[in-house]
Protein backbone atom coordinates (compact mmCIF):
# COMPACT_ATOMS: atom_id res chain seq x y z
CA UNK A 1 0.00 0.00 0.00
CA UNK A 2 2.56 2.55 1.09
CA UNK A 3 4.87 1.66 -1.79
CA UNK A 4 2.09 2.30 -4.31
CA UNK A 5 1.25 5.57 -2.67
CA UNK A 6 4.87 6.71 -2.82
CA UNK A 7 5.14 5.74 -6.46
CA UNK A 8 1.94 7.67 -7.18
CA UNK A 9 3.42 10.81 -5.72
CA UNK A 10 6.75 10.32 -7.47
CA UNK A 11 5.28 9.83 -10.96
CA UNK A 12 4.74 13.51 -11.92
CA UNK A 13 8.36 14.30 -11.09
CA UNK A 14 9.84 12.10 -13.80
CA UNK A 15 9.39 14.56 -16.77
CA UNK A 16 11.04 17.28 -14.71
CA UNK A 17 13.99 14.94 -13.92
CA UNK A 18 14.52 14.05 -17.60
CA UNK A 19 16.02 17.46 -18.32
CA UNK A 20 18.67 16.86 -15.68
CA UNK A 21 19.41 13.43 -17.10
CA UNK A 22 19.99 14.80 -20.60
CA UNK A 23 23.81 15.22 -20.42
CA UNK A 24 24.21 11.69 -19.10
CA UNK A 25 21.88 10.30 -21.75
CA UNK A 26 23.81 12.14 -24.46
CA UNK A 27 27.08 10.73 -23.16
CA UNK A 28 25.73 7.18 -23.12
CA UNK A 29 24.18 7.70 -26.57
CA UNK A 30 27.33 9.12 -28.11
CA UNK A 31 29.87 6.74 -26.64
CA UNK A 32 27.89 3.50 -26.19
CA UNK A 33 24.76 3.34 -28.33
CA UNK A 34 26.18 4.91 -31.50
CA UNK A 35 29.32 2.69 -31.63
CA UNK A 36 27.24 -0.46 -31.04
CA UNK A 37 24.88 0.54 -33.84
CA UNK A 38 27.86 1.29 -36.08
CA UNK A 39 29.24 -2.15 -35.23
CA UNK A 40 25.93 -3.78 -36.11
CA UNK A 41 25.77 -1.78 -39.34
CA UNK A 42 29.28 -2.77 -40.29
CA UNK A 43 28.57 -6.46 -39.68
CA UNK A 44 25.76 -6.40 -42.27
CA UNK A 45 27.38 -4.07 -44.82
CA UNK A 46 31.08 -4.98 -44.92
CA UNK A 47 32.23 -6.08 -47.48
CA UNK A 48 28.74 -6.13 -49.10
CA UNK A 49 25.21 -5.64 -47.71
CA UNK A 50 23.63 -8.85 -46.38
CA UNK A 51 23.91 -11.45 -43.65
CA UNK A 52 26.85 -13.31 -45.20
CA UNK A 53 29.13 -12.50 -42.23
CA UNK A 54 26.69 -14.16 -39.81
CA UNK A 55 26.21 -17.06 -42.20
CA UNK A 56 29.99 -17.52 -42.35
CA UNK A 57 30.34 -17.33 -38.56
CA UNK A 58 27.58 -19.76 -37.75
CA UNK A 59 28.10 -22.06 -40.69
CA UNK A 60 31.85 -22.60 -40.51
CA UNK A 61 33.15 -25.43 -38.34
CA UNK A 62 36.29 -23.50 -37.32
CA UNK A 63 34.29 -20.57 -36.00
CA UNK A 64 31.82 -22.92 -34.31
CA UNK A 65 34.79 -24.48 -32.53
CA UNK A 66 35.86 -21.07 -31.27
CA UNK A 67 32.33 -20.35 -30.00
CA UNK A 68 32.18 -23.74 -28.31
CA UNK A 69 35.61 -23.26 -26.78
CA UNK A 70 34.65 -19.80 -25.51
CA UNK A 71 31.61 -21.16 -23.69
CA UNK A 72 33.58 -24.18 -22.43
CA UNK A 73 36.34 -21.99 -20.94
CA UNK A 74 33.80 -19.57 -19.45
CA UNK A 75 31.84 -22.47 -17.93
CA UNK A 76 34.91 -24.25 -16.53
CA UNK A 77 36.30 -20.99 -15.14
CA UNK A 78 32.92 -20.18 -13.54
CA UNK A 79 32.58 -23.60 -11.91
CA UNK A 80 36.15 -23.65 -10.59
CA UNK A 81 35.80 -20.06 -9.37
CA UNK A 82 32.64 -20.95 -7.43
CA UNK A 83 34.35 -24.00 -5.90
CA UNK A 84 37.41 -22.01 -4.81
CA UNK A 85 35.53 -18.86 -3.79
CA UNK A 86 32.92 -20.56 -1.60
CA UNK A 87 35.20 -21.71 1.24
CA UNK A 88 37.12 -18.41 1.13
CA UNK A 89 33.88 -16.42 1.26
CA UNK A 90 32.55 -18.57 4.11
CA UNK A 91 35.73 -18.05 6.08
CA UNK A 92 35.54 -14.28 5.48
CA UNK A 93 31.88 -14.28 6.50
CA UNK A 94 32.41 -15.97 9.86
CA UNK A 95 35.82 -14.63 10.91
CA UNK A 96 36.15 -11.59 13.22
CA UNK A 97 35.38 -8.43 11.17
CA UNK A 98 38.78 -6.80 11.85
CA UNK A 99 40.68 -9.79 10.44
CA UNK A 100 38.21 -10.13 7.56
CA UNK A 101 38.74 -6.52 6.48
CA UNK A 102 42.51 -7.10 6.27
CA UNK A 103 41.93 -10.11 4.00
CA UNK A 104 39.44 -8.08 1.95
CA UNK A 105 42.16 -5.48 1.54
CA UNK A 106 44.54 -8.11 0.17
CA UNK A 107 41.92 -9.39 -2.27
CA UNK A 108 41.06 -5.87 -3.47
CA UNK A 109 44.76 -5.04 -3.79
CA UNK A 110 45.21 -7.98 -6.15
CA UNK A 111 42.40 -6.53 -8.30
CA UNK A 112 44.29 -3.24 -8.51
CA UNK A 113 47.48 -4.92 -9.66
CA UNK A 114 48.02 -4.78 -13.41
CA UNK A 115 46.35 -7.62 -15.27
CA UNK A 116 49.32 -8.21 -17.59
CA UNK A 117 51.74 -8.39 -14.68
CA UNK A 118 49.60 -10.97 -12.95
CA UNK A 119 49.23 -13.03 -16.11
CA UNK A 120 52.99 -12.94 -16.81
CA UNK A 121 53.54 -14.02 -13.21
CA UNK A 122 51.42 -17.10 -13.90
CA UNK A 123 53.52 -17.80 -17.01
CA UNK A 124 56.61 -17.83 -14.83
CA UNK A 125 54.91 -20.22 -12.40
CA UNK A 126 53.27 -22.55 -14.92
CA UNK A 127 55.73 -23.05 -17.79
CA UNK A 128 57.61 -26.31 -18.39
CA UNK A 129 60.67 -25.09 -16.51
CA UNK A 130 58.56 -22.90 -14.23
CA UNK A 131 58.52 -22.72 -10.45
CA UNK A 132 55.72 -25.25 -9.97
CA UNK A 133 57.11 -27.92 -12.29
CA UNK A 134 60.64 -27.58 -10.90
CA UNK A 135 59.41 -27.77 -7.32
CA UNK A 136 57.31 -30.88 -8.01
CA UNK A 137 60.18 -32.54 -9.86
CA UNK A 138 62.65 -31.53 -7.17
CA UNK A 139 60.39 -33.12 -4.56
CA UNK A 140 60.31 -36.30 -6.64
CA UNK A 141 56.53 -36.20 -7.06
CA UNK A 142 56.69 -36.16 -10.88
CA UNK A 143 59.34 -37.19 -13.46
CA UNK A 144 58.06 -35.19 -16.44
CA UNK A 145 56.96 -31.55 -16.31
CA UNK A 146 53.15 -31.23 -16.18
CA UNK A 147 51.57 -29.44 -19.16
CA UNK A 148 50.23 -26.45 -17.23
CA UNK A 149 50.40 -23.75 -19.88
CA UNK A 150 49.21 -23.15 -23.44
CA UNK A 151 46.16 -25.30 -22.80
CA UNK A 152 42.80 -25.25 -20.99
CA UNK A 153 44.51 -25.86 -17.62
CA UNK A 154 46.64 -22.74 -17.96
CA UNK A 155 43.72 -20.56 -19.08
CA UNK A 156 41.55 -21.87 -16.26
CA UNK A 157 44.18 -21.27 -13.57
CA UNK A 158 44.97 -17.76 -14.80
CA UNK A 159 41.37 -16.71 -15.28
CA UNK A 160 40.06 -18.21 -12.01
CA UNK A 161 42.73 -16.22 -10.20
CA UNK A 162 41.56 -13.00 -11.85
CA UNK A 163 37.83 -13.75 -11.46
CA UNK A 164 37.94 -14.81 -7.77
CA UNK A 165 37.29 -11.36 -6.25
CA UNK A 166 34.19 -10.93 -8.44
CA UNK A 167 32.82 -14.14 -7.00
CA UNK A 168 33.99 -13.72 -3.41
CA UNK A 169 32.60 -10.23 -2.86
CA UNK A 170 28.90 -10.92 -3.68
CA UNK A 171 29.10 -14.31 -1.98
CA UNK A 172 30.41 -12.88 1.31
CA UNK A 173 27.45 -10.50 1.36
CA UNK A 174 25.01 -13.37 0.98
CA UNK A 175 26.78 -15.62 3.49
CA UNK A 176 27.02 -12.88 6.12
CA UNK A 177 23.24 -12.56 6.06
CA UNK A 178 22.95 -16.21 7.17
CA UNK A 179 22.77 -16.57 10.97
CA UNK A 180 25.39 -19.16 12.06
CA UNK A 181 22.87 -20.24 14.73
CA UNK A 182 20.73 -21.57 11.88
CA UNK A 183 23.46 -24.11 11.16
CA UNK A 184 23.70 -25.08 14.84
CA UNK A 185 19.95 -25.58 14.80
CA UNK A 186 20.32 -27.80 11.73
CA UNK A 187 23.01 -29.85 13.50
CA UNK A 188 20.83 -30.43 16.56
CA UNK A 189 17.96 -31.40 14.23
CA UNK A 190 20.20 -34.28 13.20
CA UNK A 191 21.75 -32.88 10.02
CA UNK A 192 25.34 -34.04 9.46
CA UNK A 193 27.71 -31.26 8.33
CA UNK A 194 27.21 -32.41 4.73
CA UNK A 195 23.41 -32.46 5.03
CA UNK A 196 23.41 -29.02 6.69
CA UNK A 197 25.53 -27.70 3.83
CA UNK A 198 23.38 -29.26 1.12
CA UNK A 199 19.95 -28.50 2.59
CA UNK A 200 20.56 -25.20 4.39
CA UNK A 201 23.79 -23.36 3.58
CA UNK A 202 23.82 -24.03 -0.17
CA UNK A 203 20.18 -23.06 -0.87
CA UNK A 204 20.58 -19.94 1.26
CA UNK A 205 23.74 -18.89 -0.59
CA UNK A 206 22.36 -19.57 -4.10
CA UNK A 207 21.49 -15.91 -4.81
CA UNK A 208 25.13 -14.95 -4.16
CA UNK A 209 26.44 -17.86 -6.22
CA UNK A 210 24.08 -16.96 -9.07
CA UNK A 211 25.01 -13.28 -9.01
CA UNK A 212 28.77 -13.90 -8.81
CA UNK A 213 28.67 -16.86 -11.19
CA UNK A 214 26.86 -15.00 -13.93
CA UNK A 215 29.19 -12.02 -13.60
CA UNK A 216 32.24 -14.30 -13.86
CA UNK A 217 30.72 -16.19 -16.80
CA UNK A 218 29.88 -13.03 -18.74
CA UNK A 219 33.30 -11.49 -18.06
CA UNK A 220 35.01 -14.72 -19.08
CA UNK A 221 33.16 -14.87 -22.39
CA UNK A 222 34.84 -11.69 -23.60
CA UNK A 223 38.23 -12.19 -21.96
CA UNK A 224 41.30 -11.55 -24.08
CA UNK A 225 44.65 -11.09 -22.32
CA UNK A 226 44.79 -14.19 -20.15
CA UNK A 227 43.56 -16.70 -22.76
CA UNK A 228 45.92 -15.14 -25.32
CA UNK A 229 48.96 -15.53 -23.05
CA UNK A 230 48.19 -18.75 -21.16
CA UNK A 231 46.07 -20.59 -23.73
CA UNK A 232 47.15 -22.62 -26.72
CA UNK A 233 46.39 -22.16 -30.40
CA UNK A 234 43.99 -25.10 -30.37
CA UNK A 235 41.67 -23.50 -27.83
CA UNK A 236 41.26 -19.97 -29.10
CA UNK A 237 38.50 -17.87 -27.54
CA UNK A 238 36.13 -15.43 -29.25
CA UNK A 239 37.93 -12.25 -28.19
CA UNK A 240 41.20 -13.55 -29.62
CA UNK A 241 39.45 -14.46 -32.85
CA UNK A 242 37.95 -10.96 -33.13
CA UNK A 243 41.36 -9.40 -32.56
CA UNK A 244 42.87 -11.65 -35.22
CA UNK A 245 40.13 -10.89 -37.74
CA UNK A 246 40.52 -7.16 -37.34
CA UNK A 247 44.26 -6.77 -36.69
CA UNK A 248 45.69 -9.43 -38.99
CA UNK A 249 43.01 -10.13 -41.55
CA UNK A 250 41.47 -6.61 -41.60
CA UNK A 251 38.09 -8.33 -41.96
CA UNK A 252 36.02 -5.70 -40.15
CA UNK A 253 32.71 -7.18 -41.22
CA UNK A 254 33.34 -10.65 -39.76
CA UNK A 255 34.96 -9.20 -36.64
CA UNK A 256 31.97 -6.92 -36.06
CA UNK A 257 29.55 -9.81 -36.52
CA UNK A 258 31.48 -11.92 -33.97
CA UNK A 259 31.54 -9.02 -31.50
CA UNK A 260 27.81 -8.50 -31.96
CA UNK A 261 27.04 -12.17 -31.32
CA UNK A 262 29.08 -11.95 -28.11
CA UNK A 263 27.17 -8.83 -27.08
CA UNK A 264 23.78 -10.45 -27.69
CA UNK A 265 24.72 -13.57 -25.69
CA UNK A 266 26.00 -11.41 -22.84
CA UNK A 267 22.85 -9.32 -22.77
CA UNK A 268 20.65 -12.40 -22.87
CA UNK A 269 22.49 -13.82 -19.86
CA UNK A 270 22.22 -10.50 -18.04
CA UNK A 271 18.46 -10.42 -18.67
CA UNK A 272 18.26 -13.97 -17.33
CA UNK A 273 20.06 -12.91 -14.17
CA UNK A 274 17.74 -9.96 -13.64
CA UNK A 275 14.76 -12.28 -14.01
CA UNK A 276 16.12 -14.88 -11.59
CA UNK A 277 17.09 -12.37 -8.92
CA UNK A 278 13.86 -10.43 -9.40
CA UNK A 279 11.74 -13.57 -9.11
CA UNK A 280 13.48 -14.62 -5.94
CA UNK A 281 12.87 -11.23 -4.36
CA UNK A 282 9.15 -11.22 -5.07
CA UNK A 283 8.55 -14.70 -3.63
CA UNK A 284 10.26 -13.57 -0.45
CA UNK A 285 12.55 -16.62 -0.37
CA UNK A 286 16.22 -16.52 0.62
Amino acid at each position, binding site marked *: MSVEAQQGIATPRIPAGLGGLLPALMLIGLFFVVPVLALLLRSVTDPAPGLQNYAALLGDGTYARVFFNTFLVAAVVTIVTVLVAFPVAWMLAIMPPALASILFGIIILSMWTNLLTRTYAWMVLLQRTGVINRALMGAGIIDQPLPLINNLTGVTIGMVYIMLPFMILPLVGTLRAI*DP*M*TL*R*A*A*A*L*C*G*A*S*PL*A*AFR*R*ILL*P*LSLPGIAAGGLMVFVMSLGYFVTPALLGGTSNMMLAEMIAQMIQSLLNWGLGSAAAFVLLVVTMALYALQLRLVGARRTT*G*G*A
Partner: protein
Amino acid sequence: MTQPFLSIRNLRKAFGAFTAVHDVTLDIPKGEFLTFLGPSGSGKSTTLYAIAGFQDPTSGDVLLQGKSLLSVPSHKRNIGMVFQRYTLFPHLTVAENVAFPLRVRRRPDVEIKRKVADMLSLVRLENFAERLPAALSGGQQQRVALARALAYDPPILLMDEPLSALDKKLREEIQAEIRRIHRETGVTILYVTHDQEEALHLSDRIALFREGRIEQIGTGEDLYLRPATDFVAGFIGNSNFLAAEHLETVGGTSTIRLADGALVSGISANGSFERGQKTRLMIRPEAFRLERSPNNAELSVEIVDVAFYGERRRIVARTSAGQEIDIRPTSAALAAQEVAASRRPVFFDPGAAFLFPA
Protein backbone atom coordinates in the same frame (compact mmCIF):
# COMPACT_ATOMS: atom_id res chain seq x y z
CA MET B 1 20.92 -46.42 43.65
CA THR B 2 18.98 -45.85 40.45
CA GLN B 3 20.79 -44.28 37.54
CA PRO B 4 19.82 -40.64 36.89
CA PHE B 5 18.29 -39.86 33.48
CA LEU B 6 20.61 -36.98 32.66
CA SER B 7 23.68 -36.35 34.74
CA ILE B 8 26.17 -33.50 34.62
CA ARG B 9 29.41 -34.42 36.41
CA ASN B 10 31.93 -31.79 37.60
CA LEU B 11 31.52 -29.78 34.42
CA ARG B 12 34.15 -27.13 33.89
CA LYS B 13 34.64 -24.83 30.91
CA ALA B 14 37.45 -22.32 30.57
CA PHE B 15 37.99 -19.86 27.73
CA GLY B 16 41.66 -18.96 28.09
CA ALA B 17 42.06 -17.29 31.46
CA PHE B 18 38.30 -16.86 31.93
CA THR B 19 36.43 -19.74 33.51
CA ALA B 20 32.78 -19.65 32.47
CA VAL B 21 31.77 -22.78 34.38
CA HIS B 22 33.75 -23.79 37.47
CA ASP B 23 32.25 -27.00 38.74
CA VAL B 24 28.67 -27.98 37.98
CA THR B 25 27.24 -31.31 39.10
CA LEU B 26 23.59 -32.02 38.58
CA ASP B 27 21.19 -34.96 38.24
CA ILE B 28 18.00 -34.50 36.27
CA PRO B 29 15.19 -37.08 36.46
CA LYS B 30 13.19 -38.00 33.36
CA GLY B 31 10.33 -35.63 32.60
CA GLU B 32 11.56 -32.82 34.82
CA PHE B 33 11.32 -29.16 33.87
CA LEU B 34 14.59 -27.74 35.20
CA THR B 35 15.51 -24.10 34.76
CA PHE B 36 19.02 -22.67 34.80
CA LEU B 37 18.50 -19.22 36.26
CA GLY B 38 21.17 -16.61 36.77
CA PRO B 39 22.55 -13.25 35.70
CA SER B 40 24.29 -13.01 32.32
CA GLY B 41 27.77 -14.53 32.39
CA SER B 42 26.91 -16.91 35.22
CA GLY B 43 27.63 -19.99 33.10
CA LYS B 44 24.08 -21.21 32.54
CA SER B 45 24.18 -20.96 28.73
CA THR B 46 27.67 -22.47 28.60
CA THR B 47 26.40 -25.47 30.57
CA LEU B 48 23.48 -25.82 28.15
CA TYR B 49 25.84 -25.58 25.14
CA ALA B 50 27.98 -28.37 26.58
CA ILE B 51 24.89 -30.58 26.67
CA ALA B 52 24.01 -29.55 23.09
CA GLY B 53 27.57 -30.29 21.94
CA PHE B 54 28.37 -26.76 20.73
CA GLN B 55 31.17 -26.38 23.24
CA ASP B 56 33.46 -29.10 24.54
CA PRO B 57 33.87 -28.81 28.30
CA THR B 58 37.41 -28.39 29.63
CA SER B 59 36.73 -31.24 32.03
CA GLY B 60 33.79 -33.14 33.48
CA ASP B 61 31.17 -35.23 31.78
CA VAL B 62 27.57 -35.22 30.56
CA LEU B 63 25.81 -38.58 30.84
CA LEU B 64 22.47 -39.50 29.30
CA GLN B 65 21.12 -42.72 30.83
CA GLY B 66 24.62 -43.55 31.97
CA LYS B 67 26.34 -43.00 28.61
CA SER B 68 28.67 -40.08 28.02
CA LEU B 69 27.49 -37.63 25.36
CA LEU B 70 30.81 -35.85 24.99
CA SER B 71 32.18 -38.00 22.17
CA VAL B 72 28.86 -37.80 20.29
CA PRO B 73 28.71 -34.96 17.71
CA SER B 74 25.75 -32.53 17.94
CA HIS B 75 23.88 -34.04 15.02
CA LYS B 76 23.89 -37.48 16.60
CA ARG B 77 22.87 -36.45 20.13
CA ASN B 78 19.16 -36.53 19.28
CA ILE B 79 18.51 -33.48 21.47
CA GLY B 80 15.89 -30.84 20.71
CA MET B 81 16.70 -27.17 21.10
CA VAL B 82 14.91 -23.83 20.84
CA PHE B 83 17.21 -20.84 20.55
CA GLN B 84 17.08 -17.26 21.74
CA ARG B 85 17.04 -15.90 18.21
CA TYR B 86 14.73 -17.18 15.54
CA THR B 87 16.62 -19.98 13.80
CA LEU B 88 13.99 -21.29 11.42
CA PHE B 89 15.32 -22.10 7.96
CA PRO B 90 14.21 -19.02 6.00
CA HIS B 91 13.92 -20.77 2.61
CA LEU B 92 11.64 -23.54 3.91
CA THR B 93 7.95 -23.30 4.76
CA VAL B 94 6.69 -23.91 8.28
CA ALA B 95 5.78 -27.51 7.39
CA GLU B 96 9.18 -28.11 5.74
CA ASN B 97 10.95 -26.67 8.79
CA VAL B 98 9.14 -29.08 11.09
CA ALA B 99 9.77 -31.92 8.62
CA PHE B 100 13.50 -31.13 8.38
CA PRO B 101 14.73 -33.27 11.30
CA LEU B 102 12.61 -36.17 10.01
CA ARG B 103 13.89 -35.78 6.43
CA VAL B 104 17.53 -35.89 7.50
CA ARG B 105 16.62 -39.05 9.44
CA ARG B 106 15.15 -40.47 6.22
CA ARG B 107 11.79 -41.30 7.75
CA PRO B 108 9.07 -42.43 5.32
CA ASP B 109 6.95 -39.65 3.77
CA VAL B 110 3.72 -40.91 5.32
CA GLU B 111 5.20 -40.73 8.80
CA ILE B 112 6.69 -37.27 8.15
CA LYS B 113 3.34 -35.94 6.97
CA ARG B 114 1.51 -37.30 10.01
CA LYS B 115 4.15 -36.08 12.46
CA VAL B 116 4.25 -32.57 10.96
CA ALA B 117 0.46 -32.35 11.27
CA ASP B 118 0.65 -33.56 14.90
CA MET B 119 3.37 -31.07 15.78
CA LEU B 120 1.64 -28.11 14.14
CA SER B 121 -1.53 -28.92 16.01
CA LEU B 122 0.49 -29.24 19.24
CA VAL B 123 1.69 -25.64 18.82
CA ARG B 124 -1.66 -24.59 17.28
CA LEU B 125 -0.32 -23.44 13.93
CA GLU B 126 -2.19 -25.88 11.65
CA ASN B 127 -3.24 -23.07 9.33
CA PHE B 128 0.28 -21.74 8.82
CA ALA B 129 1.89 -24.86 7.33
CA GLU B 130 2.63 -23.34 3.92
CA ARG B 131 3.87 -19.94 5.12
CA LEU B 132 7.52 -18.93 5.04
CA PRO B 133 9.03 -17.98 8.43
CA ALA B 134 9.35 -14.32 7.37
CA ALA B 135 5.54 -14.16 7.18
CA LEU B 136 5.15 -15.14 10.86
CA SER B 137 5.30 -13.05 14.04
CA GLY B 138 8.14 -13.62 16.50
CA GLY B 139 5.90 -15.64 18.82
CA GLN B 140 4.69 -17.84 15.96
CA GLN B 141 8.27 -18.41 14.82
CA GLN B 142 9.26 -19.62 18.28
CA ARG B 143 6.26 -21.97 18.32
CA VAL B 144 7.39 -23.41 14.98
CA ALA B 145 10.90 -23.76 16.43
CA LEU B 146 9.34 -25.67 19.35
CA ALA B 147 7.45 -27.93 16.94
CA ARG B 148 10.64 -28.56 14.94
CA ALA B 149 12.60 -29.38 18.11
CA LEU B 150 9.96 -31.88 19.29
CA ALA B 151 9.21 -33.49 15.90
CA TYR B 152 11.72 -36.32 16.38
CA ASP B 153 10.64 -37.07 19.98
CA PRO B 154 13.97 -36.12 21.56
CA PRO B 155 14.44 -37.31 25.14
CA ILE B 156 15.65 -33.83 26.14
CA LEU B 157 14.56 -30.38 25.02
CA LEU B 158 16.96 -27.49 25.58
CA MET B 159 15.62 -23.95 25.57
CA ASP B 160 18.04 -21.03 25.57
CA GLU B 161 16.13 -17.89 26.62
CA PRO B 162 13.50 -18.62 23.96
CA LEU B 163 11.18 -15.81 25.00
CA SER B 164 13.66 -12.99 25.55
CA ALA B 165 12.98 -11.40 22.14
CA LEU B 166 9.21 -11.30 22.71
CA ASP B 167 7.11 -8.65 24.41
CA LYS B 168 5.62 -9.26 27.86
CA LYS B 169 2.12 -10.29 26.82
CA LEU B 170 3.37 -12.72 24.18
CA ARG B 171 5.89 -14.09 26.67
CA GLU B 172 3.17 -14.99 29.16
CA GLU B 173 1.08 -16.56 26.42
CA ILE B 174 3.92 -18.78 25.23
CA GLN B 175 4.91 -19.66 28.81
CA ALA B 176 1.44 -21.16 29.17
CA GLU B 177 1.95 -23.03 25.87
CA ILE B 178 5.30 -24.39 27.04
CA ARG B 179 3.75 -25.62 30.31
CA ARG B 180 0.94 -27.31 28.41
CA ILE B 181 3.38 -28.93 25.94
CA HIS B 182 5.57 -30.15 28.79
CA ARG B 183 2.50 -31.66 30.43
CA GLU B 184 1.26 -33.28 27.21
CA THR B 185 4.57 -34.67 25.94
CA GLY B 186 6.39 -35.43 29.20
CA VAL B 187 9.69 -34.38 27.60
CA THR B 188 12.57 -33.48 29.93
CA ILE B 189 13.18 -29.74 29.57
CA LEU B 190 16.29 -27.75 30.45
CA TYR B 191 15.41 -24.09 30.24
CA VAL B 192 17.80 -21.15 30.49
CA THR B 193 16.58 -17.73 31.55
CA HIS B 194 17.67 -14.67 33.50
CA ASP B 195 14.05 -13.85 34.30
CA GLN B 196 13.22 -15.12 37.80
CA GLU B 197 9.45 -14.80 37.30
CA GLU B 198 9.67 -16.95 34.18
CA ALA B 199 11.71 -19.51 36.13
CA LEU B 200 9.20 -19.56 39.00
CA HIS B 201 6.19 -19.94 36.66
CA LEU B 202 7.58 -22.72 34.53
CA SER B 203 9.91 -24.95 36.48
CA ASP B 204 9.71 -28.05 38.61
CA ARG B 205 13.14 -27.12 39.94
CA ILE B 206 15.45 -24.15 39.51
CA ALA B 207 19.24 -24.23 39.51
CA LEU B 208 20.44 -20.74 40.37
CA PHE B 209 23.81 -20.04 38.76
CA ARG B 210 26.37 -17.58 40.02
CA GLU B 211 29.85 -17.09 38.57
CA GLY B 212 30.04 -20.54 37.03
CA ARG B 213 28.67 -22.48 40.00
CA ILE B 214 25.23 -23.55 41.14
CA GLU B 215 24.41 -21.42 44.16
CA GLN B 216 21.28 -23.36 45.08
CA ILE B 217 19.06 -25.93 43.43
CA GLY B 218 15.49 -26.65 44.48
CA THR B 219 11.86 -25.88 43.80
CA GLY B 220 10.82 -22.27 43.37
CA GLU B 221 9.39 -22.42 46.88
CA ASP B 222 12.69 -23.70 48.29
CA LEU B 223 14.60 -20.83 46.73
CA TYR B 224 12.04 -18.23 47.70
CA LEU B 225 11.19 -19.35 51.21
CA ARG B 226 14.48 -21.01 52.19
CA PRO B 227 17.27 -19.20 50.32
CA ALA B 228 20.64 -20.79 51.08
CA THR B 229 22.62 -17.58 50.58
CA ASP B 230 22.02 -13.87 50.44
CA PHE B 231 22.65 -14.03 46.66
CA VAL B 232 19.68 -16.40 46.27
CA ALA B 233 17.56 -14.23 48.54
CA GLY B 234 18.47 -11.15 46.55
CA PHE B 235 17.99 -12.76 43.12
CA ILE B 236 14.65 -14.46 43.71
CA GLY B 237 11.83 -12.12 44.64
CA ASN B 238 12.25 -8.82 46.41
CA SER B 239 14.13 -8.58 49.63
CA ASN B 240 15.22 -6.12 52.29
CA PHE B 241 18.62 -6.51 53.91
CA LEU B 242 19.09 -4.89 57.33
CA ALA B 243 22.52 -4.51 58.88
CA ALA B 244 22.67 -6.54 62.10
CA GLU B 245 25.16 -7.77 64.70
CA HIS B 246 24.96 -11.43 65.66
CA LEU B 247 24.79 -11.99 69.42
CA GLU B 248 24.17 -15.69 69.94
CA THR B 249 22.63 -18.80 68.45
CA VAL B 250 20.99 -21.24 70.83
CA GLY B 251 18.89 -24.26 69.90
CA GLY B 252 18.57 -23.39 66.24
CA THR B 253 17.49 -19.78 66.70
CA SER B 254 19.61 -16.66 66.68
CA THR B 255 19.49 -13.38 68.49
CA ILE B 256 20.78 -10.23 66.82
CA ARG B 257 21.00 -6.52 67.40
CA LEU B 258 19.78 -4.21 64.61
CA ALA B 259 21.52 -0.95 63.74
CA ASP B 260 18.99 1.07 65.78
CA GLY B 261 19.86 -1.00 68.84
CA ALA B 262 16.71 -3.15 68.88
CA LEU B 263 17.23 -6.79 69.83
CA VAL B 264 15.52 -9.47 67.75
CA SER B 265 15.46 -13.11 68.77
CA GLY B 266 13.89 -16.23 67.34
CA ILE B 267 15.50 -15.94 63.89
CA SER B 268 15.96 -19.34 62.21
CA ALA B 269 19.68 -19.99 62.16
CA ASN B 270 21.15 -20.36 58.71
CA GLY B 271 24.80 -21.25 59.13
CA SER B 272 26.98 -20.50 62.11
CA PHE B 273 28.09 -17.07 63.24
CA GLU B 274 30.51 -15.69 65.82
CA ARG B 275 29.43 -13.48 68.65
CA GLY B 276 29.62 -9.87 67.44
CA GLN B 277 29.92 -10.86 63.78
CA LYS B 278 28.51 -8.37 61.27
CA THR B 279 25.53 -9.92 59.48
CA ARG B 280 22.63 -9.00 57.26
CA LEU B 281 19.03 -9.80 58.11
CA MET B 282 16.84 -10.54 55.08
CA ILE B 283 13.09 -9.85 55.29
CA ARG B 284 10.72 -10.18 52.32
CA PRO B 285 8.64 -7.00 51.69
CA GLU B 286 5.37 -8.94 52.09
CA ALA B 287 6.54 -10.41 55.42
CA PHE B 288 6.15 -7.04 57.14
CA ARG B 289 2.90 -6.50 59.06
CA LEU B 290 1.36 -3.20 60.03
CA GLU B 291 -0.45 -4.65 63.09
CA ARG B 292 1.23 -6.00 66.18
CA SER B 293 0.82 -9.76 66.71
CA PRO B 294 2.32 -12.09 69.32
CA ASN B 295 6.01 -13.04 69.01
CA ASN B 296 6.57 -10.51 66.19
CA ALA B 297 9.60 -8.29 66.21
CA GLU B 298 9.15 -4.55 65.92
CA LEU B 299 10.96 -2.08 63.71
CA SER B 300 10.48 1.66 63.99
CA VAL B 301 10.33 3.33 60.58
CA GLU B 302 9.48 6.63 58.95
CA ILE B 303 7.06 6.36 56.00
CA VAL B 304 8.55 7.99 52.89
CA ASP B 305 6.08 7.03 50.17
CA VAL B 306 2.95 4.93 49.65
CA ALA B 307 1.94 3.71 46.20
CA PHE B 308 -1.06 1.68 45.13
CA TYR B 309 -0.21 -1.48 43.12
CA GLY B 310 -3.63 -3.09 42.81
CA GLU B 311 -3.68 -6.11 45.09
CA ARG B 312 -0.85 -4.68 47.20
CA ARG B 313 0.45 -1.35 48.32
CA ARG B 314 4.09 -0.54 48.18
CA ILE B 315 5.44 1.46 51.08
CA VAL B 316 8.92 2.93 51.04
CA ALA B 317 10.06 3.46 54.60
CA ARG B 318 13.29 4.51 56.32
CA THR B 319 14.64 2.89 59.47
CA SER B 320 16.01 5.07 62.23
CA ALA B 321 19.48 3.91 61.10
CA GLY B 322 18.72 5.63 57.78
CA GLN B 323 18.22 2.51 55.62
CA GLU B 324 15.37 2.42 53.10
CA ILE B 325 13.14 -0.65 53.11
CA ASP B 326 10.35 -1.92 50.93
CA ILE B 327 7.07 -3.02 52.55
CA ARG B 328 4.20 -4.60 50.60
CA PRO B 329 1.07 -5.08 52.68
CA THR B 330 -2.13 -6.23 50.93
CA SER B 331 -4.27 -3.27 49.95
CA ALA B 332 -7.08 -4.63 52.06
CA ALA B 333 -4.80 -4.51 55.13
CA LEU B 334 -5.32 -0.80 55.61
CA ALA B 335 -6.34 2.38 53.86
CA ALA B 336 -3.62 4.66 52.52
CA GLN B 337 -4.28 7.57 54.84
CA GLU B 338 -3.63 5.43 57.91
CA VAL B 339 0.00 4.82 56.93
CA ALA B 340 0.59 8.42 55.90
CA ALA B 341 1.50 9.13 59.53
CA SER B 342 5.20 9.75 59.24
CA ARG B 343 6.65 7.60 62.07
CA ARG B 344 5.26 4.26 63.21
CA PRO B 345 6.32 0.72 64.03
CA VAL B 346 6.13 -2.19 61.56
CA PHE B 347 6.28 -5.85 62.57
CA PHE B 348 7.71 -9.07 61.23
CA ASP B 349 7.86 -12.73 62.18
CA PRO B 350 11.52 -13.52 63.06
CA GLY B 351 10.92 -17.07 61.81
CA ALA B 352 10.41 -15.66 58.28
CA ALA B 353 13.62 -13.63 58.43
CA PHE B 354 17.03 -15.00 57.43
CA LEU B 355 20.48 -14.17 58.69
CA PHE B 356 23.42 -14.06 56.26
CA PRO B 357 27.04 -13.04 56.70
CA ALA B 358 27.64 -9.40 55.76
